[in-house]
C-alpha cells in the first residue's frame, strides 16, 4: 500500500490497466435500475423548473414573492448560492494544482463538472429575475439603432462578464483536462459501441498522447490553472459588489469580497463532499477516493468556515462601531429578531456551529457524519444569502417603508427545479464522461511508485 503523509491517497497498487478498467470503463457499463430511477426523478424536477420559468416569463415577476422593499429575494439568493457552489471545482483543479496538492487528483474532475453545472443553474436566475428578460441583451455593449449603451458603473454588467468568463474558462479547463481520457474512451470502446467510439473520438480531437502533445498540453494546463486561479477569487468578489456598492444597511460593506469568496469555497467543498460520498459508495471507488481526501476537504471546510465566522464577527463589530443607527438596527435587531429571523439562527448554527465538528480528524474521516455536516453547511450558506439579501432589504432606512417577505410556490418550484436540473446534468456526466481523471491517477500512481513528489508545471 502506497502511503503519502499517513493517509493513503491510493489504496493498493493498481496497474494502469486496472485504473483504466475502473475509471474509464464506467462509461461502457450497462445502465442500472438505480440510474433509471434517479434519471426519472431528475427529469420530473427539471419539468417543474421549466414550468415555473414559463409562468414567470408569461405572467410576470409578480408570481414571485418579491415586493417593495424586498426587490430581490429567492432569485438572487439562489444565484449567489449556486455560484458559490461552483467555486470548489475550479479551486480544487486550479489552485490545488498550482500548489501541487496530490490529493486533488482523484476528485478534481467531477468537482469541475459540479462547478459547470452549478454555474449553469446560477446563470438562469439573473435572466429570470428581470422584469423584461427578453431585453437582457441590453447589458451587452452592441451598436444598436437606439445609440444607447450599458452603464458600466453598475455591478450587474460586471456580474455578466464575470459569470460568462468564469463559465467559459471552467468549461475549457474541464474539457482540456478530459482530452486524454476521451482518447482513452475512444481506444477502450468495445466493438459493439461503434457510435460512441466515434463520438468520443471526435471529442478527443485525435489525441494520441504524443510527447509533442504533452509538451504543450502541460504548459497550457498550467496556464489555464494560473488563469482560473484569480478568476475563482474574482467571480465571487464581483458578485459581492452587487451588494457592496449599494447603501442598503448590511450590504454596504468593504469586507464582502473576501467574505463572499471564503463562503463560496466553504459551500463549494461542502457540495463536493455531498456528491463525493454517494459517488464513492455507488461506484466502489474506495481505492481512489480515500479517507485522506475527506480529511483534506474537511480541513478546507474548517478553514474557510472560520473565515466566514470571522466575517460575521467583524460585521457585527463594525455595525456597532460605526454607530450608524440603520446598521446597528439591521445587525442587532432586524436579523436576530425580526420577520424571518429563524433563518439567521439557522445560518449561525450551521455555518458556525457545525463547522467546529471538523476539528476532529475522526469526524473528518467518517464519511457518513461528514455527509450530514456538508448538507447542513449547504443550507447554512443558502441561509446566509437569505439573511443578507432579504433581511437586509426588509429593514432599511425609513421605518415607514419596512416590509416583510414570503416566497410563493413559484419561488420554491424554481429553486427545487434547479436542484433537479443540476442532478440531471450531474448523473448524465457520471454516466457518459470519465468523472475521475484516469490519466492523472496513472501519473500519480507512477509517481507514488517512484516516491518522488508529483510534478507541477510552473
Amino acid at each position: 500500500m502506497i502511503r503519502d503523509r499517513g493517509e493513503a491517497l491510493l489504496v493498493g497498487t493498481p496497474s494502469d490497466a486496472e485504473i483504466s478498467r475502473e475509471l474509464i470503463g464506467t462509461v461502457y457499463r450497462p445502465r442500472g435500475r438505480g440510474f433509471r430511477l434517479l434519471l426519472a426523478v431528475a427529469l420530473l424536477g427539471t419539468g417543474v423548473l421549466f414550468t415555473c420559468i414559463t409562468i414567470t416569463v408569461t405572467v410576470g415577476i409578480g408570481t414571485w414573492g418579491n415586493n417593495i422593499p424586498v426587490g430581490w429575494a429567492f432569485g438572487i439568493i439562489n444565484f449567489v448560492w449556486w455560484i458559490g457552489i461552483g467555486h470548489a471545482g475550479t479551486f480544487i483543479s486550479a489552485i490545488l494544482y498550482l500548489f501541487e496538492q496530490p490529493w486533488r487528483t482523484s476528485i478534481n474532475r467531477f468537482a469541475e463538472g459540479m462547478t459547470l453545472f452549478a454555474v449553469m443553474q446560477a446563470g438562469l436566475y439573473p435572466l429570470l429575475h428581470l422584469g423584461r428578460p427578453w431585453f437582457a441583451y441590453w447589458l451587452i455593449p452592441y451598436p444598436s439603432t437606439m445609440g444607447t449603451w450599458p452603464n458600466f458603473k453598475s455591478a450587474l454588467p460586471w456580474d455578466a462578464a464575470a459569470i460568462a468568463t468564469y463559465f467559459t474558462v471552467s468549461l475549457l479547463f474541464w474539457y482540456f483536462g478530459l482530452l486524454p481520457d476521451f482518447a482513452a474512451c475512444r481506444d477502450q470502446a468495445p466493438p459493439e459501441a461503434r457510435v460512441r467510439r466515434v463520438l468520443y473520438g471526435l471529442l478527443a480531437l485525435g489525441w494520441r498522447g504524443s510527447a509533442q502533445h504533452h509538451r504543450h498540453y502541460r504548459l497550457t494546463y498550467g496556464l489555464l490553472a494560473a488563469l482560473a486561479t484569480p478568476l475563482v477569487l474574482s467571480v465571487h468578489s464581483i458578485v459581492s459588489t452587487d451588494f457592496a456598492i449599494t447603501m442598503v444597511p448590511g450590504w454596504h460593506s468593504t469586507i464582502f469580497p473576501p467574505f463572499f469568496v471564503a463562503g463560496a469555497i466553504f459551500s463549494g467543498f461542502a457540495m463536493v463532499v455531498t456528491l463525493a460520498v454517494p459517488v464513492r459508495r455507488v461506484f466502489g471507488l474506495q481505492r481512489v477516493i480515500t479517507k485522506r481526501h475527506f480529511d483534506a476537504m474537511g480541513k478546507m471546510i474548517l478553514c474557510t468556515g472560520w473565515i466566514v465566522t470571522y466575517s460575521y464577527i467583524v460585521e457585527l463589530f463594525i455595525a456597532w462601531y460605526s454607530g450608524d443607527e440603520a446598521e446597528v438596527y439591521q445587525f442587532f435587531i432586524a436579523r436576530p429578531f425580526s420577520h424571518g429571523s429563524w433563518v439567521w439562527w439557522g445560518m449561525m448554527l450551521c455555518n458556525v456551529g457545525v463547522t467546529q465538528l471538523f476539528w476532529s480528524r475522526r469526524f473528518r474521516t467518517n464519511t457518513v457524519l461528514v455527509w450530514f455536516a456538508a448538507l447542513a453547511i449547504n443550507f447554512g450558506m443558502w441561509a446566509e444569502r437569505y439573511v443578507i439579501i432579504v433581511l437586509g432589504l426588509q429593514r432599511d432606512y425609513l421605518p415607514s417603508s419596512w416590509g416583510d417577505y414570503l416566497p410563493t410556490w413559484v419561488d420554491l418550484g424554481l429553486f427545487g427545479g434547479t436542484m433537479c436540473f443540476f442532478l440531471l446534468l450531474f448523473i448524465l456526466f457520471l454516466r457518459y464522461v470519465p468523472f475521475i481523471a484516469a490519466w492523472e491517477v496513472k501519473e500519480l500512481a507512477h509517481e507514488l511508485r517512484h516516491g518522488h513528489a508529483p510534478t507541477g508545471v510552473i
Partner: protein
Amino acid sequence: MRHRLFSRGPVAGLVGELDSPDALLAAVRALRARGFTKLDTYGPFPVPGLEEALHLPRSGLGWIVFPIAMAGAGAAYLVQWWTNAVDYPLNVGGRPPHAAPAFVPITFEMGVLSAALAALVLALLFSGLPRLHHPLFELEGFERASLDRFFVVVDAADPAFDLEAARAALGDVGALRAVELAP
C-alpha cells in the same frame, strides 16, 4: 509544428512498444545514445523526465498568449470608456462618465477570457490537433497507448535513420515488439 511521419524510402519509421514508463525512458535514452534525433513517444500520461530525454524545447506558447490577454483587456477598457464617456456621456448618479475604478472588473475578466481562449486554441494548433485520422491509429494495438502501453517512434526522416540499428536498440531495451510503419 505538426511532426510529419512520412518520408521517401521503404519505411516511414519504426515503432517500438514498451510496457512501462521506465522502459520508455530507457528506450529513448538508448536511441538518443545511438544518435537518433527524430524521435517521438506515445503514452497514457506525461512521463517525468521524458521531455528532457527527448531534448524537447519548452513550449513557447506563453509568449503568444500574454499579448493577446493584454489586447483583450485593453479592448474591454476602451469599449467601456468610449461608450460611457465619449459616445453618449450621461450624468449617472453624479459620478464621472469616465469612472476608471468601475471599469476595472470587466477589463480584468475580458483579459482572462481572451487569454484562456487563446491558450486553448494555440495549444491545439501547436500539437497539430484536431487530427482525427493518423497513420499510427492503423497500427494494431496502438489503442493501448492511451491505456497502459508506451510507444516510441523513430522517424525515417531522421538523417541517422538505420532500420536495423533502431530495431537492435529497441531490442536491447526490451521492447515488446518493433514494427515498421509502411509509408
